[in-house]
């Protein structure tokens, strides 16, 4: 009878100690670190939001509403990222930033477009199609800048922009080659 109190206490303490472990793995809002996370509704909500934003941007682009398209895409990049370090989130953000940069450069906002590319490269640090694509878009941005500068008689700045454009395309080619080389031994994963 005397042992019952301490036994209960021990069991209860063990239960209490186990509680946070269970909660960590089961609650949506918990950030348990990348190794503990699984594909969950929070990640899906973000991906769904991204999908909607791009469809909205398509519609607005089709109506020549570039500002509206940018607003739709920027809601994605300016909001807080979902908890955890899901690679999908960074890849989607990198791709979205590439599109934002492309749209900005089409309306002559070259410096802002470059900032988007820099931010996108932070999302895609390892060699991947996402990173390669960002460099491709950078090359396009600088090409457009070249045309704009030449149109205003600023030849020297245009030449510098042309060099940056070529450098970006070269970097893109290098990254794509790396990606292809890395994929080759694995048997080139096919799209679903």
């Amino acid at each position: 009878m005397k042992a019952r109190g301490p036994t209960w206490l021990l069991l209860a303490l063990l239960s209490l100690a186990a509680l946070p472990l269970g909660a960590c793995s089961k609650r949506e809002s918990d950030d348990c670190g990348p190794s503990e996370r699984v594909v969950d509704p929070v990640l899906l909500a973000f991906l769904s939001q991204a999908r909607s934003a791009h469809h909205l941007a398509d519609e607005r682009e089709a109506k020549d509403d570039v500002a509206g398209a940018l607003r739709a895409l920027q809601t994605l990049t300016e909001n807080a990222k979902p908890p955890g370090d899901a690679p999908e989130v960074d890849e989607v953000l990198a791709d979205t930033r590439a599109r934002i940069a492309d749209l900005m450069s089409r309306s002559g906002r070259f410096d802002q477009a470059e900032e988007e590319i820099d931010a996108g490269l932070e999302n895609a640090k390892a060699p991947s199609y996402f990173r390669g694509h960002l460099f491709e878009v950078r090359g396009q941005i600088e090409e457009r800048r070249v045309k704009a500068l030449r149109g205003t008689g600023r030849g020297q700045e245009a030449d510098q922009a042309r060099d940056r454009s070529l450098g970006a395309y070269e970097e893109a080619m290098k990254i794509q080659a790396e990606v292809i080389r890395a994929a080759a031994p694995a048997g080139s994963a096919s799209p679903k």
Partner: protein
Amino acid sequence: MSQAEEEDLPLSAQEEAELLEALEAALRPTELAEDVNERLIESALEDPLAPPSEEELVESARLRDALEQGSPHEDAGVLAALRAPFSEPSDHDVGEAAALSAVEAALGAAPKSERRPSNVVYAVFGASSAIVAAAAAALLFLPALSKSGAPAASADAGALVKPHSTAPLFTDRFETGDTTARMDLIATTRGHDLRDNRYAAWGVP
């Protein structure tokens, strides 16, 4: 005469005429005369407000006796079961209530111990109760959370799909014009992964 031979016999002229009339009526029904219609309805339905027959009176008396006195009747059980939820508490219920009140009265009237209870006992049992209650609540609510929300990652974490790069979904360099299609593919693929995780968490093979 066998059935086959009977079936092979030719119909008489009258039988044939009746058969043709029946087939014609089935194929192209005509409107019934009003009096015929009324007679057909009367023969098909019984008047629900008609006075009870002698047989019905006897049967209802038997059922009433069965319910009041407990004598056997095939419908007594069903009627008793239907009546039970609306009836007053039975003797058994009254007895149970009386027993409960007696216990309460006895507890209230019992002399209180002169010995001051130990605070340690209160603390141990109080804390134990609270913690056990918390553990019970966790057991009760966490499975529900796992079903409605994120799949559990602890049990078969290896079987659940974790976030991972979407690069294997793509085999060619990206075009800016295809960004939306890439978003569609990523969202759809991870949607399937989430569904698989839920099934795995629920133990569905």
